[in-house]
């Protein structure tokens, strides 16, 4: 196994999550009229951040075990 894929995957989705969460926090509410009034950037950003961090935790656990 040349590269634990969970590491780049965790980093990438954490970056996406952080970008969307921050943008969701600072953006204007009017932006979310098209998404039924839901601040989807904030909520989905948190989902992506959680997914990314979970992947990083799995990669770290795998490296410790190895």
């Amino acid at each position, binding site marked *: *196994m*040349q*590269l634990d*894929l969970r590491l*780049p*995957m965790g*980093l*990438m*989705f954490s*970056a*996406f999550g952080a*970008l*969307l969460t921050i*943008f*969701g926090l600072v*953006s204007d509410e009017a*932006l*979310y009229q*098209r*998404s*039924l009034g*839901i601040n*989807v*950037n904030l909520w*989905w*950003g948190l*989902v*992506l951040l959680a*997914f990314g961090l979970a992947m990083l935790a799995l990669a770290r656990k795998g490296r410790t075990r190895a």
Partner: protein
Amino acid sequence: MDQIQLGAVDYAILIVYFAFVLGIGWVLRRHVKSSEDFFLSGRSIPTWIAGLAFLSANLGAQEVIGMAASGAKYGIMTSHFYWVGAIPAMVFVGVFMMPFYYGSKARSVPEYLRLRFDEKTRGFNAITFALMTIFSSGISMYALAKLLELILGWDFNASIVVSAVIVLVYIFLGGLTSAIYNEVLQFFLIVLGFLPLVLLGLKDVGGWSGLVQKLHPVATSAGYAEGAWTDSWKHLGSAGANPMGVEWFGMMMGLGFVLSFGYWCTDFLVVQRAMAAENMGAARRTPVLAAIPKALFPALVIVPGMIAIALHHQTGGFLPMNADGTPNYNLAMPALLIHYLPTGLLGLGLTALMASFMSGMAGNVTAFNTVWTYDIYQSYIKPGQSDRHYLRMGHAATVFGIVASVAAAYATTRFNNIMDMLQLVFAFVNAPLFATFLLGMFWRRATGHGAFYGLLLGTLAAAAHHGLTLPAGGVPGIKGAFLGAALHTYPSEMAQNFWTAILAWTTCFLGTIVISLLTTCRKTDAELVGLVHSLTPKPAEGHLAWYERPATLGVAVLGLTIVLNLIFW
């Protein structure tokens, strides 16, 4: 369709994605030391990665854009491509066929044909497959550039160059491993990029029950029973009772058996991912495990199309219209992305869309460079060279594959009808192929002459059937009846395609049997060990836990598929 402007956060997401894709190729370049590393990942890929790559290699434009378009045009019946077509075929290839592909140590599907039959059968398959992958990759590139031009106003040429260079760099650096790793990345990106779209769309139309209610008038206004867009089996009694224009036998035999098994069991593009797995058990589990997310994919790609047509019927103009006054179904997914996703999440959705096109391109290019190097160059042009020589040829073939794909993309812009014709010819070649493999693996008496001439007969039967029939409303030409007057008119193009495939497969199957019985089998039993079922020891499974056994997993996946069929009956 109005063009949209992306925000800085959208571009940031796109740039982060491209950086990771190229970074993976860069990190993996150090591990490519032999041709087996480059073309087969050194046969070291774990099951979960191989499984998701097996699924993702098929997640090109056809899947994401095409299935959403079919969801809008035909409703939930589109799920037959999954629950009748793909899933049983994926279980079959994992449980019954991978022992021969993997166990024979063949490096490609055409090479299996050489080992089992003879050189001419391999040559026929290798050359048609290599050409087909280039055209498929080019058409994918063209579709991506056209889409980006339409919805973002991006320059067509720039989109072609950027997508081609990115795919070229990461495959050139890391070979098949890089393609597989990026396909897994793309799989998660596609799921997480489109899921919010489905959730918002369903919330907007009042959940699944609200969607069903909104699709009733869509069906009745088209002259069908009100459940025609929301029932998958109830209206298959006759071809005229459903929007697909097919009846249950054509569906089960044409799509469920011939076309689906022909694609999932013999197409090297997907089989290559399983052949890269780390051992026989992993190779057999790869397609079976891939079938689990595949069974749930209709929620991600078909339901959006159904939401789009419901909104179109409700508002009278959600989808852009074609010149002939029909909705442009191909824009169902992009229209939903623009309708529901604000700046930020829109960047993620568009990145997912680009990822799907690029994974389709990369899958085709990696399959092409392997078949070109092993099955054409090493076999017919320069045999007996060093491994390093073939590794260099693999790199050169990758560059050539991308350049040829770009040329095919531009050819599509100028000679659209020729590209349609080429795709039709490839369909004729592919339809009978599964019969050849089925007989090769499960009938020891099948001979090389039987396989080769059976394939030719099947291909000719497909061309003849298409040339003497027409779909309703079709004009003679590429749609059929190019050999003279139409002897039969089918209710739809899909019905015509399904029956063309059935006839091609049956002709190939019977032709191969008859010719094999009339010719001498030149392979000894010793040569056929590992290639034919009756002469090959069963793979050892005693050391595997019950849940790791491919047959157990296969039964579970088929059970899930039956449940899904019953829920949406």
